[in-house]
């Protein structure tokens, strides 16, 4: 028989199309030789550990004729064995398997041909496929093994036992290393003599191996232990490789051949021949020895969600969106991106990696619908590195626009939990019966971390004696401390001096008056719980003085804050309404003086408030289950809550609202400039807005649906035609208030602000249930919600507190308030600002971090950089936290600069010396602290650390932190003053991780 030698490259085409491209892998081995009759062709392969793998095995005879091979085996038969058990066989291949051929890059088979093929999904283990000819015939056949599914399981060994002839009868196996980065370390063996040990007769006496890439020979071996000619590895290395990879040992000094080599992606052929024109049976083996740790990365979750927020450099953008990444069964990912409201035309979009933001996948422009990402190696990033990056929160979506070509929208993918059908989480264990009524000092102090601006010894004593429940009752019964009133006191007591006061408001307030008032309340007010909740609400219903139109209306900002204070334990529905009709909110989100559409001018109502009301204040972007996890559609994707059409309709509802000014009938009028008249009548800026009917859109409007179904199936809520503005507003706010999302959306955020960044679904569920019904049939009772979230098992259990992922990084501003409360920081003149400008003549000129907290701590009351608050609720610092599926929103503003600037700001005050001036003013305007509570223990490190742990670290200062501080105290110079000792201990405590995190 004559055979023509073919380039087997055609049989080993790279198969990128459907195989998820990844690090290089052994994807195909084929051997062409004679089979049938006395020459049984046996191919073996081993599937490595991992999930089941689908393989395609073919025995091609007749179709080889198409390639000009004569003497082919007319009707090959294929039998698949596991050990000695036959588990499958095929005589003529099934047409239904044909798509698999194309998928792996195998040449197609003639439809009527009698070639044999099998597709089988197999568990890890060793298998053999035997090729014979029907009726005992023999001829040339090509046997191929392909991996059909990629994934983590690998083909680690392929072997073929066949007869090796001479000349054109030599054995020509081909292998393919699939495209990818890096190399694969492969061991090739041609075993002849050692086969005799296994009882095989007429073995090839002296096999020789030659490895080709195309027509170029790149390696060869004759006699593995004592090579004649070149060798790629010595006997010892080869022996070790055999042993380590389950290859049977070769008889020492035998004439079997072996090659150990690293190969990059590509197709290769081996030639196995007998030296000296010998013939005989030989076993050809290929082992993949690439170390296991180079493969195996798997996405940790099946769904990832990225909230898209404006990039920090995209000042003024109110764009938003979200992206999802779904892992498909075959290991690839499907990416969807939805976004809206870019400032300018989009230029591009990409998936990016790490802080370098290298592009790893180009996304099409516009809404991205179902783009497949195969984790193809990109640049120097291997597939494993890309998947690991996804798992550690390092893959982000970037959307770039003309105005912000470096990126306008950005968000990192974090794991998301979701389901299609809801199962209520199991109830938690009961708390110990006295957990709420008789708390220990530890329980009391950690409770106060959650419910005040910082624990004090007095508060700890009070909580221990009253118990938590009664303490909450008492707190809720106190009258609210109001910011506006406190600011008026401040400006009356400490008038702004002419050169310093910018008189940028009608009551002659400046931002430091507001801040002074805020500090005073945070540090000294009795109604701590209410104030803490109000501060949390100010991060949900955001207005910000960073917007110049808001920042010069200090009175209005103060009044707004008081709205939040008054409603902190009230009803959420009422809060929604008060916020909506607040004039300063009307300025911030531009629905003040919003008019119905004017067809002549071609204008439409402003959509800003309509969007943020839904996205940020009530329902969010995607449908939620009652426990705050995602509600998924039949395809496993999140379901949007509204679309652009909803926004446009909602914008029409919010038309006609303007300042409420006594006796005014002009929609366009603004409040009088009260600068010259003092604060006699500032009603325009302080009163709720009113609606002018003539400017209100009275058409019928289709707004948000209460159904949690895909939008094309959802029935909108109808706002009837011919209603007044307030009537329309009622329909809108009722709908949003009653939407199933609102409970979990709000509850989860309150939990995140007060207790822990990563509440369990159960915790969110329990609190949302209280939002839905406070026990007396009322929905939206914030007081009940606050009580529920503070007394919940998850908030109180010490066992839960010890979990590695429980708790939250304290907000920078709250670390300062806690510090100030513990050390009774204030200026002796009663002001909660430092007034030292270096010149005692300007003693009321406030300076420093307390006058401008947002500069010193990257956070200041009502000074968020945008309506998206200081940080995103789903921010996860890339790294171990994201890998664990946890978020830590506060870390978003504790960046590499503020990690130092913040502590610097208040430590500067702690350690500074008061200025030495002649004729110091009295009472002093310079900020001071009261260390007396700690001085008694200045020489007793243990007692001092106990105190500091109780006050600053929830009584849980770790052993290691404690010993560091104790050692430092020991190491201070012998003549160090008591005060400095105490200050050192405090300084180290407040900067420790123990004090930075509340648990």
């Amino acid at each position, binding site marked *: 028989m004559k055979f023509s030698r073919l380039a087997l490259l055609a049989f080993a085409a790279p198969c990128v199309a459907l195989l998820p491209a990844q690090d290089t892998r052994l994807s195909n081995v084929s051997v062409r030789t004679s089979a049938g009759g006395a020459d049984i062709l046996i191919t073996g392969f081993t599937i490595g550990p991992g999930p089941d793998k689908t393989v395609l095995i073919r025995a091609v005879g007749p179709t080889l004729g198409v390639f000009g091979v004569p003497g082919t085996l007319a009707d090959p038969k294929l039998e698949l064995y596991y050990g000695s058990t036959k588990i499958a066989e095929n005589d003529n291949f099934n047409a239904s398997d044909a798509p698999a051929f194309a998928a792996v890059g195998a040449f197609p088979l003639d439809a009527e041909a009698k070639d044999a093929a099998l597709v089988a999904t197999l568990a890890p283990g060793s298998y053999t496929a035997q090729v014979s000819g029907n009726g005992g015939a023999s001829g040339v056949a090509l046997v191929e093994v392909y991996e059909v599914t990629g994934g983590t399981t690998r083909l680690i060994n392929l072997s073929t036992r066949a007869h090796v002839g001479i000349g054109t009868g030599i054995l020509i196996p081909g292998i393919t290393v699939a495209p990818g980065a*890096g190399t694969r370390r492969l061991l090739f063996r041609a075993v002849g003599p050692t086969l005799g040990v296994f009882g095989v007769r007429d073995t090839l006496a002296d096999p020789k191996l030659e490895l080709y890439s195309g027509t170029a020979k790149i390696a060869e071996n004759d006699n593995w232990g004592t090579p004649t000619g070149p060798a790629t590895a010595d006997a010892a290395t080869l022996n070790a490789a055999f042993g380590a990879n389950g290859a049977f040992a070769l008889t020492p000094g035998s004439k079997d051949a072996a090659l150990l080599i690293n190969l990059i992606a590509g197709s290769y052929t081996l030639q196995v021949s007998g030296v000296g024109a010998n013939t005989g049976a030989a076993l050809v083996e290929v082992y993949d020895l690439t170390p296991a740790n180079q493969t195996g990365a798997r996405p940790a979750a099946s769904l990832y969600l990225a909230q898209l927020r404006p990039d920090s450099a995209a000042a003024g953008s109110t764009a938003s969106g979200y992206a999802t990444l779904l892992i498909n069964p075959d290991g690839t990912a499907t990416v969807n991106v939805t976004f809206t409201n870019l400032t300018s*035309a989009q*230029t*591009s979009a*990409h998936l990016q990696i*790490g*802080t*370098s933001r*290298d*592009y*790893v996948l180009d996304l099409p*422009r516009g809404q991205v619908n179902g783009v497949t990402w195969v984790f193809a190696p*990109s*640049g*120097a990033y*291997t597939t*494993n*590195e890309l998947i*690991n990056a996804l798992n550690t929160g390092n893959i982000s979506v970037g959307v770039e*626009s*003309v*105005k912000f*070509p*470096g*990126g306008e929208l950005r968000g990192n993918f974090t794991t998301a939990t979701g389901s299609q059908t809801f199962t209520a989480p199991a109830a938690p264990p009961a708390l110990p019966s006295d957990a709420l009524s008789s708390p220990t000092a530890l329980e009391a102090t950690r409770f106060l971390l959650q419910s005040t601006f910082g624990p004090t010894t007095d508060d700890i004593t009070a909580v221990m004696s009253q118990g938590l429940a009664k303490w909450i009752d008492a707190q809720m019964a106190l009258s609210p401390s109001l910011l506006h009133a406190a600011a008026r006191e401040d400006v009356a007591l400490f008038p702004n001096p002419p050169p310093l006061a910018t008189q940028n408001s009608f009551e002659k307030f400046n931002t430091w008056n507001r801040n002074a008032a805020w500090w005073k309340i945070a540090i000294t007010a009795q109604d701590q719980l209410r104030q803490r909740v109000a501060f949390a609400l100010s991060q949900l219903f955001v207005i910000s003085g960073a917007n110049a139109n808001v920042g010069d209306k200090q009175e209005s900002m103060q009044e707004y804050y008081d709205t939040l204070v008054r409603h902190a334990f009230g009803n959420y529905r009422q809060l929604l309404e008060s916020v909506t009709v607040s004039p300063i909110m009307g300025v911030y989100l531009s629905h003040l003086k919003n008019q119905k559409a004017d067809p002549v001018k071609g204008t439409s109502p402003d959509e800003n408030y309509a969007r943020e009301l839904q996205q940020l204040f009530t329902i969010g972007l995607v449908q939620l289950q009652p426990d705050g996890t995602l509600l998924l559609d039949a395809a496993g994707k999140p379901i949007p809550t509204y679309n652009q059409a909803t926004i446009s309709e909602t914008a029409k509802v919010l038309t006609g609202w303007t300042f409420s000014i006594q006796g005014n009938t002009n929609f366009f009028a603004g409040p009088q400039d009260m600068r010259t008249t003092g604060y006699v009548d500032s009603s325009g800026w302080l009163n709720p807005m009113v609606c002018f009917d003539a400017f209100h859109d009275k058409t019928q409007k289709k707004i948000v649906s209460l159904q949690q179904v895909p939008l094309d199936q959802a029935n909108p809520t109808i706002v009837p035609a011919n209603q007044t503005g307030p009537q329309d507003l009622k329909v809108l706010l009722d709908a949003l208030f009653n939407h199933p999302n609102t409970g979990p959306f709000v509850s989860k955020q309150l939990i995140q602000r007060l207790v822990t*960044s990563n509440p369990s679904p159960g915790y969110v569920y329990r609190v949302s249930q209280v939002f839905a019904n406070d026990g007396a049939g009322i929905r939206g009772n914030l007081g009940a919600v606050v009580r529920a979230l503070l007394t919940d098992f998850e908030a109180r259990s010490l066992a839960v507190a010890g*979990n*590695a*992922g429980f708790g*939250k*990084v304290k907000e920078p501003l709250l670390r300062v308030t806690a510090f100030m409360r513990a050390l009774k920081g204030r200026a002796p003149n009663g002001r909660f600002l430092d007034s030292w400008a270096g010149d005692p003549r300007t003693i009321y000129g406030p300076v420093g971090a307390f006058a401008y907290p947002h500069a010193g701590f990257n956070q200041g009351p009502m000074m968020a950089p945008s309506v998206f608050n200081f940080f995103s609720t789903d921010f996860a*610092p890339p*790294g*171990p*936290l994201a890998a664990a599926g946890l978020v*830590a929103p506060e870390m978003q503003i*504790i*960046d*590499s*600069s503020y*990690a*130092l600037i913040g502590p*610097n700001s208040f*430590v*500067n005050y702690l*350690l500074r010396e008061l200025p030495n001036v002649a004729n110091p003013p009295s009472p002093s305007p310079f900020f001071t602290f009261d260390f007396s509570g700690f001085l008694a223990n200045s020489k007793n490190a243990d007692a001092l650390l106990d105190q500091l742990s109780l006050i600053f670290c929830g009584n849980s200062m*770790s052993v*290691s*932190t404690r010993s*560091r501080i104790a050692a430092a105290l020991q190491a201070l*110079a012998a003549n160090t003053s008591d005060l400095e000792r105490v200050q*050192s201990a405090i*300084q180290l405590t407040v*900067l*420790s*991780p*123990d004090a*930075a*995190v509340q*648990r």
Partner: protein
Amino acid sequence: MNSPSSELTRRNFIRQTCCAAVGTTGMLSALTQLRVIGAVAADALKPATAAAIPADYKALVCLFLNGGNDGNNVIVPYDPASYNAYAAARGVLAINRAQLLPIAPKSYSDGRTYALHPALADVHSLFEQGKIAGLANVGTLVQPTTLAQFRDGRALPPQLFSHSDQMLQWQSSIPDKPFETGWGGRLAEITDALNSNNQISMSLSLSGVNRFQVGKSVLQYVVNPGGAITMAGFGGGGNTAVRYNALKSMLADPQDNLLNGTFASATKNAIADGEVLSTVLRTAPTLSTIFPDTPTAQRMAMIAKLISLASTLRVKRQIFFVQLHGWDLHAGQLLGHGPLLAELSGALKSFYDATVELGVANQVTTFTASDFGRTLNPNAEGTDHGWGNHQLVMGGAVKGGDIYGRMPSLTINADDDTGRGRWIPSTSVDEYSATLATWFGVSASNLPIVLPNIGRFAKSSLGFMS
């Protein structure tokens, strides 16, 4: 890699190595660990008072335009016939001829005249002063390549038109091998010997960790463009040092809670970043040159500051890396390109002025690089990924006011067009880099260590440096 000649000593290796195995695997995590190279006690760095920068000091600044800058609209044909052809090909993206800034290259001649994009006014004036040169049609090449060879698919840089791959190949200058080191890293290794006893890496990045500066023994150090912030309340000796060390130890202790751990490492890293440089930066002279308030210019300002401290840092060779994002203008290019070029132009000008002020204009060379050029033919209102691109080189030692290399045909379907005006580069990244490396001090015999593929190309110097 061959062991380099005596130009490299291992003296600084031990001092500067802080992380093992900067290889391709685990690149992401390894690179994010690169931090302070050798924490130094404050008194080891006594700032020399009013120290002048050594006369034999040189600095290279790589300004990477991330995303693929459209060079076709940077150097634009100007003579009426050529301009009309350009305008016809570019459609809506053609720049209005009246707004272009014509240039008169000293020696470059190909029958056309050229002009610069209107947003590059400062670049234009520096060009006319002979301080900026244009490099025509530079790109990644495995070997000189013809259109026929391109179509054959042989010996091409892998993954042409892919951002991450092309960026990598520009920064490594070895397109045909898996990435190991950047040419900036290799250049640093071979010239680091000129830095005797430098306490800080000569490879400084103002734009985060990058591939250009990956080397085997000289590791890059990432500088915060805002300068070094340090922990306050610890200034002084004695007790201060006790507290400071206690804090640093505390932050390095293992934490049992993931949030504690995250906070601790964030603070620890922030402290480390600030430590070394802060002492030094405090002694930097104030420059009178005003830098525009753009991210790029601010980074160049910090580079100028670092250059001014060359004596204090005891360096004679430094390599800097800065990156400007946003050039991937698939849409919105008309409105989007100008502002980016304006930022580039302003940053280059202020930086040049600063080097003049410091008296080192001839010792500092800044060069641009980018993933690739872009298609001559637009899509609706933007461009798509291309190949050969034009770059700019700036410095007193640059033989400026001229164009080097060969401008592409600028004609669709000509023999340098692989489709839609994706030009086959007429100059390789290797030749471009080799010219810079030679100026920087690499001898001809050592050039292949920095640029292993240089032997495949005709020129190891394009002649734009004096």
